């Protein structure tokens, strides 16, 4: 059994920190995809033509009902074999993670849209407002108030799933710990522990901020 070693902690920390920065970068890229794509999907499912609604609904059902790891491995293999082997694991992994979580954020947006009373749509129709104003000035501001906290929680959940990309060689924290162990035959316990602490240190304040935002939005005028 390997014993805890403080010297290893000091030695492994820079590598784990590099992995942590990679996790943050993946979260940023995938988060932007999840937040924006989810919104577009929710709008498309609400007001797109019937064929688009069917395509979006079918595709994202499929995404939600298959494991992230399988999606990551499948897309990584498919892109490197058939599309472009130059694409990095970081880019492919971030995109898959973002699309995967867009399937959840879109549901939160959808719930936020459905919670808006029918009368809001009817008033917008009665005033003949153009579609972009109906969405931009009436529906989205009201929907965001309802959905922001849920979407923030999905992004936090996504952040914690970044280590899945270890499977395709993205050098995040777990990969760094294993790499260190591969070279030094030690350090995996310390590495995983530091990774866990860094995850907690990063996600806890964000979760608290999301909760505060939720409370603040709930107290707003609308």
């Amino acid at each position, binding site marked *: 059994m390997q014993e805890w070693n403080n010297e290893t902690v000091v030695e492994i920390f820079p590598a784990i920190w590099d992995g942590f920065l990679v996790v943050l970068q993946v979260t940023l890229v995938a988060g932007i995809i999840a937040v924006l794509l989810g919104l577009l999907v929710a709008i498309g499912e609400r007001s797109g033509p019937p064929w688009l609604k069917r395509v979006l609904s079918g595709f994202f059902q499929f995404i939600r009902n298959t494991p992230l790891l399988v999606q990551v491995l499948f897309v990584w293999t498919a892109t490197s074999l058939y599309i472009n082997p130059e694409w990095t694991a970081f880019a492919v992994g971030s995109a898959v993670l973002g699309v995967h979580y867009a399937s959840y954020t879109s549901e939160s947006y959808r719930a936020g849209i459905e919670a808006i*009373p029918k*009368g*809001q749509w*009817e*008033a917008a*129709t*009665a*005033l*003949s*407002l*153009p579609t972009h*104003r109906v969405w931009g*000035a*009436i529906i989205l*501001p*009201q929907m965001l*108030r309802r959905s922001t906290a849920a979407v923030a929680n999905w992004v936090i959940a996504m952040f914690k799933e970044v280590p899945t990309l270890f499977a395709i060689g993205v050098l995040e924290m777990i990969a760094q710990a294993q790499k260190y162990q591969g070279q030094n035959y030690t350090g995996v316990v310390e590495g995983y522990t530091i990774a866990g602490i860094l995850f907690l240190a990063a996600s806890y304040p964000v979760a608290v901020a999301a909760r505060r935002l939720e409370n603040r939005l709930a107290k707003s*005028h*609308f």
Partner: protein
Amino acid sequence: MPSPTSNEPIIRFDRVNKSFGDLNVLNGLSFDIAPAERVTLIGPSGSGKTTILRLLMTLEHITPVKHPEENGGVMWVEGEPFSHMDKGGKLVVANERHLRQARQKIGMVFQQFNLFPNMTVMRNVTEAQVHTLKRSKDEAAAKAKELLDLVGLSDKVDNYPSQLSGGQQQRVAIARALAMDPDILLLDEVTSALDPELVADVLGVLRDVASSTNITMLIVTHEMGFARDVSDRIMMFDKGVIVEEGAPEAMFGDPREERTQDFLRAVRSE
């Protein structure tokens, strides 16, 4: 094919049908409304009154019939086909673009006010002026101030709807509808969601609007006193057909039909 000219009714229902699934709400309904006329639709729940307003506001769509040129099933507004459009001399069911254009002549005040909660009172009244009618922001704001003054809320321009009472919200909704300079104003049970003490203010505003403008009004209400005061004509509906219609004095004073008598008795005893 009936093709009203500009001298003719501002609203014409020509054998209009409306079904929700298997439920026939309107079955070949026909009536005319003259320009500047104030007509109140009364009748029990489910008699089709609100459906008529919602069809005119394009919130619902008529159930089309074949060959509308001969068989009707068409709504006309200001002499133009409203639920339909002319395509090579034939009437076809209107598309969204036609409806968007056509409904700009019509304004509606809803039972639940339906103000936009994320906008101030001022923005509620200016939003569609700027983005639908393409008025300048200054022009829209001036119009909004004038109308908010008319409804007695000029001191609330910066408030949000949630900071107003139900009666105040409904008065903003009236100002918002009037800001679009509609030729036709639809009032759908505008006092039903209000506490009793707030009803009088809203009805007072509507009485002012009725007496100071030429806007054609179609009113659905259970406020019989108000209906008597502002209406030129009362139409009693039951099961999607007009049971009886006439001047308010006759309708409220001496209704001929038993169903009208029963309905008025029920409303008065509420």
